[in-house]
């Protein structure tokens, strides 16, 4: 029973959503909307466990003053700071909550994202090598698009082909790569993904894939 009930719940929930997709009727649509909100509500209860997990990761180290416990204390302080300001002053513009968001959280996340440019540069240097045919194809198409998407690429390439009477060749090539081979690649990839997703979903619905039930009976 400890395994059957979850499997039945899984199957019924899945079938309702599967069939609802094809019907415009307001009743099943209403039910499905309600049921989707249930997953949000369950997610909120789950968040509680997530936060317990966060404290279990950091708090013991602070209590024991383990090496580097200061960092763990920073995490907990950040969490508490955000929660307290959010609960006390609310989350409207001009509140301490938003101030912390703008001046503490945002600079870090935005700079983390900005670091990507550096990682692209280092990956370009170390990983983009002409070691195989496939790698070379990848590299050449990347370089063409990279140069074709900025004004300078066309500017210099046009100087090369100007005697032949062509203009904007590199930009056009980049756009062609993006509009044709790229579209073909994405579509082929998508068809595979579509069937792959449907297969995984079906395995879950039918209870063939039930690793999420944990082990014991």
């Amino acid at each position, binding site marked *: 029973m400890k395994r059957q009930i979850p499997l039945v719940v899984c199957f019924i929930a899945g079938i309702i959503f599967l069939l609802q997709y094809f019907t415009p009727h307001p*009743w099943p649509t209403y039910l499905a909307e309600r049921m989707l909100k249930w997953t949000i509500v369950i*997610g909120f209860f*789950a968040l509680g466990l997530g936060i317990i*997990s966060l404290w279990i990761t950091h708090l013991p180290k602070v209590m024991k003053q383990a090496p580097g416990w200061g960092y763990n204390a920073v995490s907990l302080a950040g969490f508490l700071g955000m929660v307290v300001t959010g609960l006390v002053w609310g989350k409207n513009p001009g509140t301490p909550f938003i101030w912390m968001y703008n001046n503490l959280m945002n600079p870090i996340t935005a700079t983390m994202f900005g670091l990507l440019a550096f990682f692209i540069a280092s990956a370009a240097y170390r990983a*983009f090598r002409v070691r195989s045919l496939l790698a070379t194809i990848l590299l050449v198409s990347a370089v063409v698009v990279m140069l074709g998407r900025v004004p300078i690429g066309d500017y210099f390439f046009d100087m090369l082909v100007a005697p032949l009477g062509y203009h904007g060749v590199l930009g056009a090539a980049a756009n062609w790569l993006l509009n044709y081979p790229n579209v073909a690649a994405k579509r082929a990839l998508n068809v595979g993904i579509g069937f792959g997703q*449907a297969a995984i979903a079906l395995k879950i619905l039918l209870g063939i894939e039930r690793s*999420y039930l*944990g082990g014991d009976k």
Partner: protein
Amino acid sequence: MSFLGLGMILLPVLASPLHADASAAPAPATSTTAAASSAAAATAPTSAAPATGAPATGDAPGEPVSGEGPGAAAPAGPPPEPPSEVTAKDKPGDEGKHVTVRWKISPDDGAGTRSVIGYEVLRGPAAGGPFTATGTKAPAGKTEAVDEVPADGTDYWYAVRAITITGATSDSPAFGPARSTAQWFNPEKTSVAVFTLIFCTAAAIILAMARGGTHFYIRPIGGINAIDEAIGRATEMGKPILFVPGLQEADNVPTLAAFSILSRVAKKAAEYQTRLIVPCYYSMVMIVAREVVKGAYLEAGRPDAFQEKDVFYVTQEQFAYVAAINGIMLREKPATNFYLGAFFAESLMLAETGFMAGSIQIAGTDQPIQIPFFVAACDYTMIGEELYAAAAYLSDDPKQKATLKAQDLGKAVVLALTGAGAMLWAFLPTWAVWFSKMVADGEFLWSRVAGLFGMGS
């Protein structure tokens, strides 16, 4: 509100080009309240695209008034011939509360000083009226509009009013009764329904065959051996394995695939007694991942080795999560990193930091944008569908492998249709029109095909 004003409101409708895919579902300007209309009329600029040449005629003052309708005070020209043969019936395949009204255009539609510029649908509770304007409008030349009604299952009578540029109007005879109902099937989804049915049936048959002992051939794919080797390497080095299950919720399919693979990886890790670290983006993912890993340890016969705190929630903020994982990679120095599931911009940061830390990296995602980064920076990358197939490959269950066969069958159908479509295009254009019409129920495709061959409207 003046009828001149009404004419001005309709102008933008007429002037704006009809969008190709808007024809599939005509979108009537419903429930435009009188106040909004007059506001719009008051502000309708003379710079309105003069393609129809209408403002010029509309400016002509001093025409006689045909003051019918509430508040009509503006001058109007001679009334046009009314539309005829009005019919109304429930709009099929919808959520109810819509009635499709059709009519035959007024003889004055398109020419002369009484030129009709548009139609408005009138609705009444009985054959004798009273009829009121619904706000549902259509530009000249159109013979159909969809009216949104207050309730399903109520009888309504309809008439259609023709409106000229000067604001003169005339109403057609009434038609009724019509009532709207909600339907249980959306015909626009037919092709999806057919595919779903084919796929699920094929999968069911193949699963039954697998249960009956039929063996299906599956070709080897590279990434699978790489997974085993990577776990083995971590064991040899006595370092942990890092498993990142992607940045989507537990009910998203890439995450479901990650869970399946996680269960196989965790079982191996348990057998080899190698530590497995699973940082999670959502709490729900953490909860499911804990069950998955616990189950795998139990299956491997080492339930006591399961460390709940190694499967933990980090934060559901993309770059904070990445910062934390980068930290784990640099300080715990895992021998092997798995990135399986849905990844976004962070893919390359994870992969490059993992490279700096000297880990073996195996990635798999269905996000087309991120695949090139993983391909460039990881030791092995499962592309798209390979991510979904990996769980089946890693499993000993014949039913798991059988679903791969079902996926292939689905792809074979797509291939056959693509091939056949191309052939028909190339050799028998007229057949291609017919074929595409049959395959694709969408209006959009039909109009493109028909347009290409100079047929259709």
